[in-house]
């Protein structure tokens, strides 16, 4: 995906000195990050390195202790409910476990945003849902099933369809390939690249799957002990000159990175 990397313009998402602690544990310690419009940024890092917390702070699901998070130049940290809902309209999110609503049918899951938030009529939203399911390679008959009747890979596809149903400007991916076999993981990666490219959206992903990071990202940032210790184009990751990055991308047990025990 690197060949299509956009030139840095006014940042779509901009983080300055973002910090988050849980009690004495400092999870994020001053993150600075810019994501350009149309760019796909992938944040890598070990378990417990603060990737999920970073994503939740950008999404507004968690408030940082300090720092600035701007979306389209607009400061979002102190947003009230109404402003938060407005900026959420720009977002689509693929959760690690899919987070599909298990009391609703597949098509109702995909059509949830258009119906509940955009006030679309259910018949029209159903057509949108079927079209989006088609975009992720699922037939209309899948729409009538419940999420519990689907395999892990199909659930991820449905979750992706839901994430793109409202044609968001920014899509977030939380460990999109976790728990999938390598072939299905590659299918999901291809779908992510296609969907993001078709929508012309900006993407922010967190993952520890290097194959996925290389495939879906224009740029990669490495999070370690709450700091972005390296960031650069995907092509540069193999000669980053950073011992932490080298250890991580080659999956070596020996090196400067020590296993993080606690989860955040």
């Amino acid at each position: 995906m690197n060949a299509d990397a956009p030139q840095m313009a006014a940042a779509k998402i901009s983080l300055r000195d973002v910090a988050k602690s849980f009690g004495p544990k400092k999870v994020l310690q001053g993150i600075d990050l810019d994501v350009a419009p149309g760019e796909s940024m992938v944040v890598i890092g070990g378990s417990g390195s603060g990737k999920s917390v970073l994503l939740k702070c950008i999404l507004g699901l968690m408030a940082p202790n300090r720092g600035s998070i701007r979306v389209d130049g607009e400061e979002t940290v102190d947003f009230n409910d109404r402003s938060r809902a407005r900026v959420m309209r720009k977002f689509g999110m693929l959760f690690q476990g899919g987070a599909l609503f298990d009391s609703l049918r597949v098509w109702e899951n995909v059509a949830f945003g258009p119906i509940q938030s955009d006030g679309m009529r259910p018949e029209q939203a159903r057509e949108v849902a079927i079209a989006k399911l088609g975009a992720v390679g699922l037939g209309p008959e899948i729409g009538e099933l419940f999420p519990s009747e689907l395999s892990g890979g199909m659930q991820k596809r449905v979750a992706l369809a839901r994430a793109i149903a409202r044609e968001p400007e920014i899509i977030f991916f939380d460990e999109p390939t976790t728990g999938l076999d390598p072939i299905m993981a590659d299918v999901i990666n291809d779908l992510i690249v296609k969907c993001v490219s078709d929508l012309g959206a900006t993407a922010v992903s967190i993952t520890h799957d290097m194959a996925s990071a290389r495939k879906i990202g224009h740029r990669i940032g490495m999070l370690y002990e709450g700091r972005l210790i390296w960031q650069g184009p995907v092509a540069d990751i193999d000669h980053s000159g950073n011992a932490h990055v080298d250890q991580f991308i080659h999956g070596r047990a020996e090196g400067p990175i020590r296993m993080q025990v606690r989860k955040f």
Partner: protein
Amino acid sequence: MTIPLLTVLGRMTLAFLEAAGAVTSFAFQAIRLSVQPPFYRQQLLRQMLEIGYYSLPVVGLTAIFTGMVLALQSYTGFARFSAESAIPNVVVVSLTRELGPVLAGLMVAGRVGAAMAAEIGTMRVTEQIDALTTLSTNPFKYLVVPRVIAGIVTLPILVLVADIIGVLGGFLVGVYKLDFNDTAYLRNTLDFLEFQDVFSGLVKAAVFGFLITLMGCYHGYTSKGGAQGVGMATTNAVVSASILILTFNYFITEAFFSR
């Protein structure tokens, strides 16, 4: 010995006050958001069906056997004083004022409160609540408000049905086992019954409906830690709702009937 004991006592008091504050704040948020659009009517109807219609068999069975036992037990006591004619009065007043709302409340707390805590708790630990937020839907309004309103509206209807079924249970035992005249039994029941008896029971039911759904939603919404957390939320929802039902029952009774 005294200082560690005081420390434990202090910690327990602080934890209790913290929990009470959190529940109160949760309740106020539910009330505040219940008057603000958007209103999720379909969710409300679904919850009313879940709380009301699907609880009918269990509440109905509880009510009919309670009415039957009440008639039977009253007879064994009242027969000693030749006061058998008071049985219809005792059955109807006990049911409408106390047993109808309290037993229906406890049964619904076990059935619906537990299910709510488990469903919302599972949604919390599987990130479905976060997913609602990212779909520009306020999860509190979507999940909590319809359940609380459904509880307040539906439980009085359920209790009214329970009252009628309970009186029928007493009537069946009175007429077919204790040889009461059926017309006399019904006349005694209606003559003695006052509007306040039924009304106080319905007020109790509305309050219990609020407490049951509030506890189910609160414990589910704040659950954490996977399956164990959801299990704990379910237990806490039933236990706290049951205790609150019995506590509030006393205070509402005192408000209505104390001289």
